[in-house]
């Protein structure tokens, strides 16, 4: 119920630009154009790209990472970072593997996973929000610690023998080519969209990232919000761990190695300011799909995974550098 028509003499208009101009000048729009371009390049490059089963398979290489990326986006928007996410996956997966050996069944496995993930997140949260330590260092420490525990437990061995019902999370299909993970990805994306853009919690997160002191003075419980964000990231890492473990059917301590940097890349590519204070969930969704399509497209061309990382790296620097270069060039022309 907007009532913009009650304008008086000195009143200030609500919006500087219309929602439409806002949308087409946004980062998400630029990213969407990149996504469409990559889509058509892929269609051109390989006849196998448009096969629905191939496309369905391709979603696996971003859905799990993206689920963590949504939570990571909120953490980064609040001005912090969590580099321990992949290690939380390793620890959660190890715990599940351990419980499987004791004969624990699927529902309890998932519950335990969420609990362990939340506990890991709470540990980070206490150190960062409670003690006020820099999150980049804390989470480099817990990165070593959490995966280190997995190594202590497993060494060079592996857990397997997950129950059959457990396979559904990472291998199940809901309908035709629609996997369970795709549905979960969509639901999680929607939940995080609402959380960040439609709730006062999300508003607080953005305010904290812009200026934590001013946010505190405005009555926001800064430490509490940050603590909760780390717990949330821990939980999302656990969800990803369930899907990944289910898909692989086994647990090694090196599971999901290096994911933390890929996830941060995804978030930054999605237009979230690495310095905090700005970012959107739709941006992260598109970034996840872009990264997934690049990986899949190059895979169809038999380009090895490691070379794809060059593209991801170039994309990361390129999409951030390009607007800066354009802005500079425009200023130079202007003056």
């Amino acid at each position, binding site marked *: 119920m907007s009532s913009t028509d009650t304008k008086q003499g000195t009143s200030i208009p609500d919006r500087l630009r219309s929602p439409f101009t806002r949308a087409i000048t946004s980062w998400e729009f630029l990213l969407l154009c990149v996504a469409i371009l990559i889509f058509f390049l892929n269609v051109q490059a390989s006849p196998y790209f448009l096969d629905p089963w191939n496309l369905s398979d391709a979603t696996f290489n971003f859905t799990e990472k993206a689920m963590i990326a949504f939570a990571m986006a909120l953490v980064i928007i609040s001005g912090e970072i969590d580099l321990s996410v992949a290690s939380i996956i390793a620890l959660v997966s190890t715990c599940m593997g351990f419980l499987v050996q004791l004969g624990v069944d699927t529902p309890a496995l998932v519950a335990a996973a969420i609990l362990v993930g939340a506990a890991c997140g709470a540990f980070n949260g206490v150190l960062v929000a409670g003690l006020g330590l820099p999150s*980049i260092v*804390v989470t480099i420490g817990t990165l070593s610690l959490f995966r280190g525990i997995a190594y202590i437990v497993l060494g060079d061995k592996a857990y397997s023998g997950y129950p059959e019902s457990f396979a559904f999370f990472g291998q199940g299909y809901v309908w035709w080519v629609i996997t369970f993970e795709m549905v979960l990805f969509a639901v999680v994306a929607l939940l995080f969209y609402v959380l960040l853009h439609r709730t006062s919690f999300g508003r607080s997160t953005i305010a904290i990232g812009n200026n934590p002191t001013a946010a505190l003075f405005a009555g926001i419980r800064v430490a509490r919000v940050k603590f909760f964000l780390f717990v949330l990231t821990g939980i999302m890492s656990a969800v990803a761990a369930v899907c990944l473990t289910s898909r692989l059917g086994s647990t090694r301590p090196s599971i999901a190695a290096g994911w933390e940097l890929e996830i*941060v890349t995804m978030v930054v590519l999605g237009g979230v300011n690495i310095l905090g204070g700005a970012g959107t969930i739709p941006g992260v969704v598109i970034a996840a799909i872009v990264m997934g399509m690049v990986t899949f497209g190059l895979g169809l061309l038999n380009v090895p995974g490691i070379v794809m990382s*060059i593209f991801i790296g170039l994309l990361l620097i390129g999409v951030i550098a390009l607007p800066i*270069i354009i802005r500079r060039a425009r200023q130079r022309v202007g003056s």
Partner: protein
Amino acid sequence: MSSFKFSRDVLLAFALVALVALVYTRFPEFASVKSLSGVFNDTSILIILALGQMAVILTRCIDLSMASNLALVGMCTAMLNAAIPALPIPLLVVIAMLLGALLGCINGLLVWKLDIPPIVVTLGTLTIFRGIIFLISDGQWVNAHEMSPAFKALPRAHFLGLPVLSWFAIVSILGMFVLLTRTAQGRALYAVGGHPNAAVYTGINVGRTRFNAFVLSGALSGVAGYLWVSRYAVAYVDIAAGFELDVVAACVIGGISIAGGIGSVAGAVLGALFLGVIKNALPVVNISPFWQQAISGSAIIIAVIFNARSERRVGRIILKKAEQV
């Protein structure tokens, strides 16, 4: 109020001695000169990298691409050696250093000229450098038998009773010490990290100084690249993968503030040695090497809690009463 306080470096040195003493109670041989110089030699590469990382962190930046830089330069030197075995090794070391500096240059330029946050830049170059190794090597290994004997011998050769590898670390330590305490450029690193705005007013070019720090860390990574490949006598895509975090860990344990402007050469070296001692002591006292990661993780967390306590600014104390307590 007591004005008696330990410097962080002294405290860390005590912790290191205590750690060695602890291992000594279980295994006296560990504390022998021979064994300890072995630990130092084994930690040399980490020390060299930590020194470079420190220069970058002092300026409020971070270089996550060091390990990829090391691997790329290592691969290049190995392939160069395999292709032209006659190339003198000292020249090869210089080439490694220049190549590393060039890669550091790319990071530095992106940070300086385009103002992209260093963590983003080096996250990008981390993956790019790694990918390039695959492109140039086609995923193939360069094995020991393809390398010339001189290439492999240099780090193992002894000079004044110490392996040349250790001498590389010692020269780097001395060089960094002089640079950081006695040159204008070195002091500028502290100024830029301590207070970038104020640095501008004193005539220091903040971007340029950061660029220099990245070139320095790149050059040291390059040298470390040759040392790594020649020492282990193998080069492949994944060497030193994830080592960038160990380097940051050494700096954090060494008391170098991630917020910039605080840190010393002694701290970085002690931080690296701390991790080195743990790594070397575990097999000696019969603990599975799989414990190493968890222990160094705990060390980082303890160190950062400790650093934060000693860095915490004492607010201005207004009451006279409180001052006298």
